[in-house]
């Protein structure tokens, strides 16, 4: 099972079309293995990107040097997935006897 320790989801709000195209350029940098959860649409609509741990520093430097503002929507994806899995398993334990 693939795990996502250290992966973060960054929320980027492009200010203008220049920044939009800079973010679009990120899409073509396939070595970063970025996963666009919310794609590039127009200036002001947020873009959410899952960034693997190995690309995090490079991507953040890229955004900061271009003056592109971002926030961290999910600090550690695997922690969130572990919680989700735990909720599923505990809920299943509860409902199993009833079924």
């Amino acid at each position: 099972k693939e795990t996502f320790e250290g992966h973060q989801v960054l929320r980027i709000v492009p200010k203008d079309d220049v920044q939009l195209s800079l973010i679009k350029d990120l899409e073509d940098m396939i070595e970063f293995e970025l996963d666009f959860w919310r794609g590039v649409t127009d200036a002001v609509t947020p873009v959410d990107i899952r960034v693997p741990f190995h690309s995090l520093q490079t991507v953040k430097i890229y955004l900061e040097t271009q003056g592109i503002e971002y926030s961290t929507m999910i600090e550690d994806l695997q922690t969130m997935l572990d919680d989700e899995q735990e909720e599923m398993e505990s809920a299943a334990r509860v409902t199993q006897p009833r079924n």
Partner: protein
Amino acid sequence: TDSYDYGRYHPINEIYDFQDMLVAENPNMVSKIVIGQSYEGRPLNVLKFSTGGTNRPAIWIDTGIHSREWVTQASGQWFAKKIVTDYGRDPTLTAILNKMDIFLEIVTNPDGYYYTHNNNRMWRKTRKPNPGSNCVGVDPNRNWDAGFGGPGASGRPCSETYHGPRANSESEVKSIVDFVKSHGNFKAFISIHSYSQMLLYPYGYTRTPVKDQAELHSLAKKAITDLASLYGTRYRYGSIISTIYQASGGTIDWTYNQGIKYSYTFELRDTGRYGFILPPSQIIPTAQETWLALMAIMDHTYKNPY
């Protein structure tokens, strides 16, 4: 199915069991049609809700075409139970079902859904290998014969928006295409995704407005207003290309071009804390509010036959 836990995410075998239970409990209204098989051989189950007649005008709803969008398959199970619960109680739904059929495909991408539970929670595409590439899968919402292969999809098999080698190359897509064509009397087609809270109508592959744009736009406004009335969840709405981005080979562009006027795509919650990892506590509120929008679209379809 009264004791089924709609407030949690279920693995695929439990969803299949749920579908069979619902059919067994409602033999006079619910039947299961297997419209095809996924690449890995799983059945593509469609629940048919009908109170009689043959080949009545029909409404299609699908969830889970992008497998990681778990709140959509979960909402689909809640919708199924809502239909059988409200028929005979809710006058609007009763009127609709007395004249129309509803078809609901809950797990539209079963191979991908199984894979998200057992191998990779982030998986979105189908699971068919791509010859000549290490990367597996096609984006099933770029594989339809509507602007196929144009801007707004990728030709790279490793991309999340890979359109596939040709239109309808994915059996999960081709099976719906064949079913819709053979049925021939669909009047509304609603494909449900998550996330980002939008209600979208065609087109995605071209800036040319659809001829029914004014009607689709005003109906979308009514639908999202009803949706927001429950918990205040705010949606944006409009055509795919003007509201989000250019996307070619999309489901509802093809269905609209087949003459199914009321073609819509939903993007359910959330706005940006959890993305696809929406907590299960939000499943039922999401399904409840979405249902109000679905009812607006279905009621309009029923009252405006064409």
